[in-house]
């Protein structure tokens, strides 16, 4: 039993509230990412799970036990720090063995465990080295090893890949996922890299300014963002958010903005006629024929696709992702067809909630 439950967890630093009444229930064996912009409270949340920081309110339970007052060593968690925090004067083997040693595991039992961990992480040839004699990726693996060797219930990882170069990061990403599958342990992973969160997690907790915005699987976060913040935060290039008006015509909802008129399908009971925001992913607008017309302002070619910025009526600019085979020129007038089935509608304002009824609308699978 290693589910992690946060109930109304709060952390104040003087006048600053780093975490606001956070509710999060992480299932046993789940890989959960905490994702959000810098300063949103990810690290603070993770440190509260580790016991390095204490909540000023609320309750944290790990494996059913309230751990608010339990010191880090007694929580049966392991943490990997962004800076790795390897003990500089100890060899790789001693670094990995340290948590066992401090828990009174006899030397004879430590040895095979360290060796097994080293093998798992391909550290065997490096066991006698000191941390400063290792590359960033190797240090990262030692930090992982030190966490793994004890076989804790929950792994906490604070941006463990952010000090690595792009190529190594992708490699370690895959290794971490594989490791998670093999161990089946609960993992809480802090990152500000949405690609990492999207590719690795079972579920993503998106946090902004200390408040949970959405807690859902990556596909749902992408295809059914809970509010305007999540819609704008997830996806590169970001979702186009257009201010306009919502109206009901003969029982069907319709969104209008200058030069744009779109039937948006089923909405929740919260939907009201009046100002609202429409969200369109860059890939959910086809170029070539359609009711909307615009002028191409920017064209970016990236090989397998083109990204263009089109200005429509009312000075609204849309970023669109189109196949590499279509290459308009700057200044061209193009016709656009927004895909109404993939249009997102949010209540007016910065914090506008999602109004579409469908909770997730994954793209049709073609195999």
């Amino acid at each position, binding site marked *: 039993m290693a589910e992690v439950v946060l109930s109304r967890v709060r952390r104040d630093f003087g006048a600053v509230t780093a975490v606001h009444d956070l509710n999060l229930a992480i299932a046993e064996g789940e890989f959960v990412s905490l994702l959000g912009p810098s300063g949103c409270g990810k690290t603070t949340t993770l440190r509260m799970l*580790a*016991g*390095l920081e204490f909540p000023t309110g609320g309750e944290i339970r790990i494996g059913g036990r309230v751990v608010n007052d339990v*010191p*880090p*060593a007694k929580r049966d*968690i*392991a*943490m990997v*720090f962004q*800076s790795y*925090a390897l*003990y*500089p*004067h100890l060899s790789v083997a001693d670094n990995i063995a*340290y*948590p066992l040693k*401090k*828990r009174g595991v006899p030397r004879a039992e430590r040895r095979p465990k360290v060796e097994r961990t080293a093998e798992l992480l391909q550290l065997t040839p490096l066991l006698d080295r000191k941390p400063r004699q290792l590359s960033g990726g190797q240090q990262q693996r030692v930090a992982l090893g*030190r966490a793994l060797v004890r076989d804790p219930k929950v792994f906490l990882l604070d941006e463990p890949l952010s000090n690595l170069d792009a190529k190594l990061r992708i490699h370690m990403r895959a290794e971490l996922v594989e490791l998670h599958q093999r161990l089946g342990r609960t993992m809480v992973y802090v990152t500000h890299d949405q690609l990492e969160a999207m590719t690795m997690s079972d579920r993503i907790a998106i946090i902004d300014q200390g408040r949970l915005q959405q807690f859902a699987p990556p596909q749902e976060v992408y295809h059914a963002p809970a509010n305007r913040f999540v819609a704008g935060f997830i996806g590169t290039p970001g979702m186009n958010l257009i201010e306009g008006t919502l109206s009901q015509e003969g029982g069907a909802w319709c969104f209008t903005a200058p030069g744009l008129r779109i039937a948006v399908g089923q909405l929740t009971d919260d939907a009201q006629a009046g100002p609202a925001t429409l969200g369109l992913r860059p890939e959910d607008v086809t170029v070539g024929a359609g009711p909307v017309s615009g002028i191409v302002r920017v064209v970016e070619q990236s090989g397998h696709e083109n990204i263009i910025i089109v200005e429509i009526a009312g000075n609204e600019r849309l970023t669109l992702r189109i196949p590499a085979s279509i290459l308009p020129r700057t200044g061209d007038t193009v016709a656009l067809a927004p895909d109404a089935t993939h249009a997102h509608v949010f209540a007016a304002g910065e914090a506008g909630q999602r109004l579409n009824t469908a909770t997730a609308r994954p793209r049709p699978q073609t195999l």
Partner: protein
Amino acid sequence: MTTVPQTHLERRYAALGLLLIAPTVLVFCVVIVYPLISAVYLSLFSIFTPTLQGEWVGLSNYQALLSTGEFWTSLGNNVIWTVGTLVLQIVFGVAMALVLHENLWFRALARSLILFPYFVSTVVAVLVWKWLFNDLYGILNHLMIVAGLIEFPLDHLGSMPNAMISVIIVGAWKYFPFVVIAVLARLQTIPEQLYEAARIDGAGPFARFWDITLPQLREVLVVIVLLRAIWDFKEFDLIFLLTGGGPIIGTQTLPLLVYKEAFALNRMGMAAAYAVVMMALMLAFMLIYIRQTRRRES
């Protein structure tokens, strides 16, 4: 070694380098090399200090020196003083640095106060301590009697081993701030995450000190110990002012002996011989220190 053929420019560059360091080398020779050589030279004469008249005696000063009990007693005192005061300086210095490293509200104030003994002039410090130690009206005896530690006033400076203990304590008091400052500077560079990782790994406060703080302090402690050992070994004014080397020669260290030979007994040649022997002893510390700093740089 291979000799790389030098271009004209490189040769001119080398000449410029020589020219630029020449003043330093010159000053170094005048203030260090010349006194050093002249000390060795003087030690080969028997010289009457007031007139500085002397005659060549070869190595007989050294022969005399090694066969007198006073030299060996002073050397022994010197070692006891150096080791004693150094150990106290390190223990109190590290302990105080650890306390000051904690987030105390009065930390800034405490840090400046702690430097006080180091900055106060030795003469003033010794006067104050002499007053504290006084066997007739000193506050130390008063407090010890009130606390029931002793029945009658103790002679802190005039009897052995009290005098040596007092000197060692005053030395530790005067110089431990140096250790505090050096250790504190190093403590502040130890990443907090190491301690956090250790807490998660199950290390208690003592284990964290032993497994993280001490290894991180190791290098700076080696340097502190070597530097302070050299400085304490040749300490003169503090001991001279506090006890004058007494009772009899109970706290007389080699620097005091050199002074006594040169200016009380008027035997400059003999004093020079003592000084040269002292220098040779300190050279050992120096070499270790140089090796240590070299290793750190590489």
